[in-house]
């Protein structure tokens, strides 16, 4: 009995150590965002704010453009998720339910394309968009994000559709349903949770992106959240309390969405190569 108890205590001690390790940077971020701009630049740094203040948040929200960055990120990430889910559902259904010439090669192409680095595409992409007059537009940025999100959406959705028995389709078709009706009325309702999970993953990948926004967006009013925050640090004197307030705002949406997605995370991550 005592040996079991020791094992139990050790497990929880280890878990608490893990929690401390994971939470400390978050704690530091939130704590610094609540300090005055004088306290945040005292040496050595204080652990907790001496005087709690929301000044940094007020300043960041009042700062020109910050709300706009937030809206831009929502718009670009939302549209990316919608586009890759729409195209992805059809492709996933095709891969899951049909046998056709070139299927294996195409599946491999979708999978391997997830391994390509974004910097390989960014140069030619830049030129393509300039030629099409799409440089410095959100539409161009959305298409660029789709290069990352579409392949994994297809693979993830295929995994969900594969779990449904083909008999569902066959039964519906015997009753006179067309292929499209099958997809919309039999398959889609059954994979709805998976579809939502896929869309949220795509949203988060787009939300966290910096490279594409940095290369394809020029006008300040069109910048996304990550780019706006990065530019705060690029300035001459960094106001750390304000920057930390901005990062708190930038982290909140992904953290909330991931926590809602908790249940799907394990299977989703194992089923495809997703990372924010």
């Amino acid at each position, binding site marked *: 009995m005592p040996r079991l108890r020791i094992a139990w205590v050790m497990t929880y001690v280890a878990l608490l150590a893990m929690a401390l390790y994971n939470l400390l940077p978050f704690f530091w971020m939130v704590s610094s965002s609540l300090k005055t701009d004088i306290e945040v630049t005292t*040496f050595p740094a204080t652990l907790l704010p001496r005087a709690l203040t929301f000044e940094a948040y007020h300043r960041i929200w009042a700062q020109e453009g910050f709300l706009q960055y937030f809206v831009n990120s929502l718009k670009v990430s939302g549209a990316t998720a919608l586009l890759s889910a729409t195209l992805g559902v059809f492709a996933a259904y*095709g891969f899951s339910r049909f046998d056709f010439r070139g299927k294996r090669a195409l599946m*491999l192409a979708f999978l391997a394309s997830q391994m390509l*680095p*974004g910097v390989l595409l960014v140069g030619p992409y830049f030129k393509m968009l300039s030629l099409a007059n799409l440089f410095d537009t959100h539409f161009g940025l959305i298409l660029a994000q789709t290069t990352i999100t579409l392949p994994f959406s297809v693979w993830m959705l295929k995994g969900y559709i594969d779990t449904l028995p083909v008999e569902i389709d066959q039964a519906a078709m015997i009753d006179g349903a067309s292929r499209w009706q099958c997809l919309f009325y039999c398959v889609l309702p059954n994979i709805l949770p998976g579809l939502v999970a896929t869309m949220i993953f795509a949203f988060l990948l787009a939300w966290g992106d910096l490279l594409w926004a940095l290369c394809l967006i020029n006008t300040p009013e069109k910048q996304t959240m990550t780019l706006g925050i990065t530019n705060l640090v690029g300035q001459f004197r960094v106001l750390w309390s304000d920057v930390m307030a901005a990062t708190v705002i930038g982290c909140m949406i992904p953290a909330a969405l991931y926590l809602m997605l*908790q249940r799907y995370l394990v299977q989703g991550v194992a089923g495809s190569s997703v990372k924010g």
Partner: protein
Amino acid sequence: MIGERYTGWWFVGPAGLVMALILGFPAIAAVLGSVNLGWGSTKPFGIDSYLRLWGDAEFRQSLWNTAIFVVSVVSLHFLLGMSVALLLDRPLRMRWLFRVIAILPWTMPDVIGGIIFRFIFDTLYGGINALGLAIGWIDQPVDWLGRPGLALLSVILAEAWRGYPYVMLILLAGLQAVPREQYEAAKMDGAGAWQTFVYVTLPNLRTMIVIALVLDTVWECRLFGMIFGMTGGGPGQATQNLTLLVYRHYFQFFDTAYASSIAVVLAAILLVAAMPYLRVAIRRAE
């Protein structure tokens, strides 16, 4: 599976076309660009960009930085990820809470992580130096991000923190699929905790370990935001990886051909590294 010879194409076609246009086309253009066959290239066809790579000290350093960074980070991710996955695989009280905490670092966009750690490692106002001084590890503030070796170490530590939940999640999925009877059998045979881990857990986990290591390697090789936000590749080029190097050649020096050749080398490395994963994934999908 329903065997209609071409019907499947109607479903797969749109996504395939879009991918060919926004991914296939630029990828091919990049490869062509690296041998001076790209748009607006004035030089004749040639592999001079690749020849230049050989003699370029900055390229060598970036390659070396990438190698050190990826090997260290992936090893740390594996150690941390495996430990936490084993902890979370046990029956626990408040397991959901620990799971939530365990994945939190990974929810942070990488560039935001980079900015936060840039502040944490700050010489004067950062938390690391404040902590070190308070405990007595150091007697004066250390310039973490200003000294080449320390800067690389700091970036490695920061990314080790941010990325490990990803590896943990894949390993946890693997652990939960291990048949419980095998643990029972090992227990009946009198196996200890370590023996059970080596002879039951690890063999069952082999595929998931390969997947986790390969995917993590690919992600860490092309990491951009974390390093861009934390050091911008500096001091000098001490923390510059291949991704940042390509970015600089494109958008600071506007040397398209040379930038493409580095990107092509990086893409080739990634595709080769991803081979084991591609094989497993295709086999599973069929």
